[in-house]
């Protein structure tokens, strides 16, 4: 069964918190609509790690053109991205 949006957001928060903690930062105050790069809890390298973790966890096949603020810039937009990919994949699988 596919995860709900709420479950995905919870999982994303855990992953982001882990990466932020490695840099000595706390990401718990980040809201669903906050732009993650602007929050300065992870740097560019940390963001790449975050994207890789999300990609591997949900098997998304993220491409270079997906690496935009609009697609992956907030916790909420990432959750929507994951759900959209899962819906697309389930339709393809028939």
């Amino acid at each position, binding site marked *: 069964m596919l995860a709900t949006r709420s479950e995905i957001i919870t999982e994303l928060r855990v992953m982001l918190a882990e990466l932020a903690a490695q*840099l000595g930062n706390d990401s718990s105050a980040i809201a669903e609509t906050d732009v993650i*790069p602007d929050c300065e809890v992870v*740097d*560019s*390298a*940390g*963001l*790449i*790690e975050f*994207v*890789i973790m999300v990609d*591997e966890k949900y098997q998304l096949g993220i491409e*270079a053109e997906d*690496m*935009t*603020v*609009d*697609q*992956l*810039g907030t916790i909420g937009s990432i959750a929507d991205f994951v759900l959209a990919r899962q819906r697309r994949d389930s339709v393809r699988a028939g």
Partner: protein
Amino acid sequence: MAHAVHAPRVNNNDDTVTVVRIAVAVGDFVRPGDLILEVETEKAAIAVEAEQDGHVLLVRGREGDTFAVGDVVVWLGDTPDEAVPEPVPDLSAPDIGGRDFAADEGVTGKARLLLSQHGLAAEVVPRLGSRLTAADVQAYVAGLAPTAQGGIAQRESVQRAPAQTEALPAPADLAPLRSGERAVLATVTWQRDHAAAAFLEIEYDPRVWREHGADFARGRRLLLDPTLALMAHRLALLAAATGANGTVLEQPSPRRVRYRQVNLGFTVQARETLYLCVVERAETLDPEGFVARLGELQRRAMAHRLAPAEARGATVGFTSMARWGVLRHVPILPPYCALMVAHGDAFDGGARAVLGVTYDHRLLSGFDAVRLLRLLADPARDIPNPRL
């Protein structure tokens, strides 16, 4: 988890096969269908291809060796640093002429012969590519002093493997270096034995670059801060324009080498592994193209999926330790590189930062290095016309 690639049965009557070609080296990443080995018997030959993704952890034996059908010839792993599930050879054993599979990793047959002739350990010879070749050994040996008898005298720092173990101050356990560790060893050994490494640094105002990067990202809706990538791109343009893109060969006669393209090496720390991603022909890319290409390489490196060709051949380098709060550091020169720029974290409320450079003094003067750093520190300054 490690996966074994076995010597296959080629026909019913032969219980052994001969490896005629090994198409991979330790550290390579293979995908399903990639050629790993070619084996033959007297009657037939077949290719052995990868059945799954994997990093080459260990290659047992060499071309020309005979294996029993079912023997493990190659180990693949999900990560490049995975442990090989077989006993680690005892490197303290004095018989260096015997078969030592660990020492065979990524060393061509001709190179192995030369190493043996000169009494060298493979680890001390810098390699240009993923495998140690005869050319690498010859270049290394050429830097050593000829003796009156026409032979080659070793430097004091170059020790035979048994002597090194004898010099250890206490009982110790030994293990082969992992591929990433071997790459670091090759780098520091090249700098120690070949380059005339010097270092200097300047202070600059990092806010100019930060604003430049933010403008660039905003206009293109980029997720990742492109500032460091843009600095590295500018370094590539400056290296091409100022002649800081080459090396010096000392043997058989001193020669200045100027590369015809700039391959920009950019360090990526992926957990405990340090990669040097290489953007080839960086000077021919526009900023968008360079940022996209480097971003792609960074993602692959962080996922430990960098192809060997994407991590070799750097002619200049850029490294940053800003994410760790490091203000200044002295990088090591990659083999045959003219310089490596060091970027550090900002201080004084973000208004000041340091740019450093390790450079090969055989090729560049301190003046050259300072001039390059000053041009790098300000993205608004014009890049000089390429040196003729």
